[in-house]
């Protein structure tokens, strides 16, 4: 993730927002709901709160506009730029602007919210059947007042459920007429109009008078887009006219003829050749919710991310079941801390430079404070096994760092991670680093695996320390070693443990109280009885059966502070003993606590 230069952020948590105007593409209730959900994406993981206000200056002013819309950063017609927003601060800072030459939907095509009728504002159902005929748009058939309507189920004939479609004959948005419908014809600037017009405006929005004479009454409103309205072009909002003539040919549906980019368009008069009036036909459109959630990220202080799956990645892509990526969560919590959701931590403050002990010196861990009892968080006590009686860990020789300048924080991932004698150990290519949750001494190492555990290969796949005997098991490929101090038993084949050929390597282990350990390989796991060194009957089992919601082919699996950690790529998924994923974060920033 990235924040703006100087970590621009709001100096208060209770933020306000105001929607200055609405796109004619969607019912304003749909837009309000989308913006509310987009803010909730961020308030769910921070202490931030968002309140919509309807007048005055809000922290985050939201507007729709097209081309040059008043801030010196013009939009560019349909597609291309969708929206932009400004980092936190006064005035235009924090504001979010959406290009209204785009077709705003919820990402999967037009959303036609009905009014009146008997369907309580339900959306149109396309296609629907009326008098045996199938329709995929609003119709005026069956009525004499010309009001477009639709069925809100697949068959009006069967269900008789219907509502009226957005139309300037039914209501207007904004303006000064409290939503009154247009009056046609109306006089404007001495001219009579029978349709909505953009005349008299530079922002391209269609409007009409809500009395017969605008020159006299000055009463007006903005026209909602009908479901067949075109997008962009030079007729934004006008409905297609079928059939229309183009290059001498007649067209009764949208076409991509005349274009190289394959986009579908139509004429908004019956003859394009003479009138040159056109626009793009409705397509899937862009999700106002997803784009708003991204722009609000900017309004809160996040810049673009290079993580493709992140919401703050600059390019638009529609996702059905949206979830914030850990990168987004890390970024926003870096700025505003945690919220009611999972508890990530902001990156640790830069460690004060301590002189690294020269390799010849024994590095003395410096207890900066009384040793704190291990914090036991609620719900982290094991629910499956009684507590283990504590044994004093075997005295181990303090390892000599092979090269303290080898920084664990530049490693992209690790061969194995596990807790040994109360310290997390990170193994990579024959080296390892340790980080104690007791001492505030940060990461120690790199140390040499061969010095501490002679006979082990440089690259291992997994390791764990048996809680009872303090022996340390190492796995590489289909072999395993058991160390008791520097005494080693092995290598032996994991076949001896009762693990069949289907396991090419062990990726991790979870100690489960009295003498049992779960060993993970691929998408399966085995339960090992450490004492008899055999896996229990009835295994392997599918990881997904129990550990739902974690990566099934995790690179590392380990127990730490009573919780299960599954690592994949740069992330880890943390799970409580009740099998609930309570946190997703970065191995590097959370577990290693790199700056």
């Amino acid at each position, binding site marked *: 993730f990235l924040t703006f230069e100087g970590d621009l952020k709001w100096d208060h948590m209770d933020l306000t927002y105001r929607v200055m105007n609405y796109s004619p593409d969607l019912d304003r209730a749909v837009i309000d709901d989308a913006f509310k959900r987009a803010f909730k994406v961020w308030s769910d993981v921070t202490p931030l709160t968002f309140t919509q206000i309807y007048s005055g200056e809000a922290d985050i002013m939201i507007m729709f506009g097209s081309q040059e819309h008043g801030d010196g950063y013009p939009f560019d*017609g349909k597609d*291309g*730029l969708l929206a932009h927003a400004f980092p936190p601060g006064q005035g235009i800072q924090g504001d979010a602007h959406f290009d209204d030459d785009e077709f705003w939907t919820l990402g999967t095509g037009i959303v036609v919210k009905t009014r009146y009728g008997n369907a309580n504002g339900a959306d149109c159902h396309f296609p629907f059947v009326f008098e045996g005929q199938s329709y995929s748009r609003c119709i005026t058939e069956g009525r004499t007042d010309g009001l477009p309507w639709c069925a809100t189920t697949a068959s009006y004939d069967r269900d008789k459920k219907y509502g009226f479609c957005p139309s300037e004959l039914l209501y207007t948005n904004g303006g000064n007429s409290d939503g009154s419908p247009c009056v046609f014809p109306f006089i404007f600037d001495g001219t009579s109009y029978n349709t909505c017009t953009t005349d008299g405006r530079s922002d391209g929005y269609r409007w009409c008078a809500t009395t017969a004479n605008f020159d006299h009454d000055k009463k007006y409103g903005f026209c909602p887009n009908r479901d067949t309205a075109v997008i962009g072009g030079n007729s934004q909002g006008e409905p297609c006219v079928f059939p229309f003539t183009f290059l001498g040919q007649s067209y009764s549906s949208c076409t991509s*003829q*005349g274009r*190289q980019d394959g986009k579908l368009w139509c004429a908004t008069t019956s003859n394009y050749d003479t009138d*040159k009036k056109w626009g793009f036909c409705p397509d899937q459109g862009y999700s106002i919710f997803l784009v708003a959630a991204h722009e609000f990220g900017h309004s809160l202080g996040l810049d*673009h991310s290079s993580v493709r799956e992140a919401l703050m990645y*600059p390019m*638009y892509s529609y996702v059905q079941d949206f979830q914030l990526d850990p990168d987004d969560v890390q970024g926003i919590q870096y700025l505003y801390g945690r919220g009611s959701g999972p508890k990530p931590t902001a990156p640790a403050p830069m460690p004060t430079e301590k002189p690294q002990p020269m390799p010849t010196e024994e590095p003395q861990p410096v207890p900066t404070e009384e040793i704190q009892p291990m914090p036991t968080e609620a719900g982290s006590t094991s629910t499956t096994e009684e507590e283990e009686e504590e044994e004093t860990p075997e005295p181990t020789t303090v390892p000599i760092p092979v090269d303290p300048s080898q920084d664990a924080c530049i490693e992209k991932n690790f061969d194995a991670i596990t807790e040994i004698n109360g310290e997390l150990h990170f193994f990579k290519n024959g080296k390892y680093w340790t980080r104690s949750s007791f001492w505030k001494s940060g990461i120690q190492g790199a140390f040499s695996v061969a010095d501490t555990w002679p006979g082990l290969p440089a690259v291992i796949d997994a390791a764990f320390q048996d809680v009872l005997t303090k022996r340390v098991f190492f796995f590489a490929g289909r072999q395993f070693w058991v160390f008791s101090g520097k005494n080693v038993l092995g290598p032996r084949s994991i076949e001896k443990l009762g693990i069949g050929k289907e396991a090419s390597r062990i990726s991790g282990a979870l100690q489960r109280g009295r003498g049992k350990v779960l060993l993970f390989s691929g998408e399966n796991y085995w339960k090992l009885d450490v004492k008899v060194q055999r896996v229990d009957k009835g295994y392997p089992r599918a990881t997904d059966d129990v550990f739902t919601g974690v990566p099934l082919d995790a690179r590392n699996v380990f127990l730490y502070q009573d919780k299960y950690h599954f690592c994949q790529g740069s992330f880890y998924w943390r799970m409580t003993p009740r099998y609930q994923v309570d946190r997703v974060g970065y191995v590097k920033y959370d577990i290693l606590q790199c700056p």
Partner: protein
Amino acid sequence: PLQSKPRAVVTFPGELVSSTLSDLELAESYLLRFGYITEAEERSGSKHMSLGKALRKMQKQLGLEETGELDASTLEAMRAPRCGVPDVGT
């Protein structure tokens, strides 16, 4: 069926110039707009050198293969709908 005659390509009124830009023009305007090339570099003569470097920077930021060339996937990314906030700089 084969097109009876070559597709006529029409410039639609109100259509923005951007859709008829050449690939190189599209790339230069994209790299400038999103902060990969500064105005100074754009004006200076070393455009070609800075173009390759800027392309590499953009490809890295967007997770594309860093070729420094204006290849198909890079052009596709430049045409894709996106946020207007620059990727580099203020």
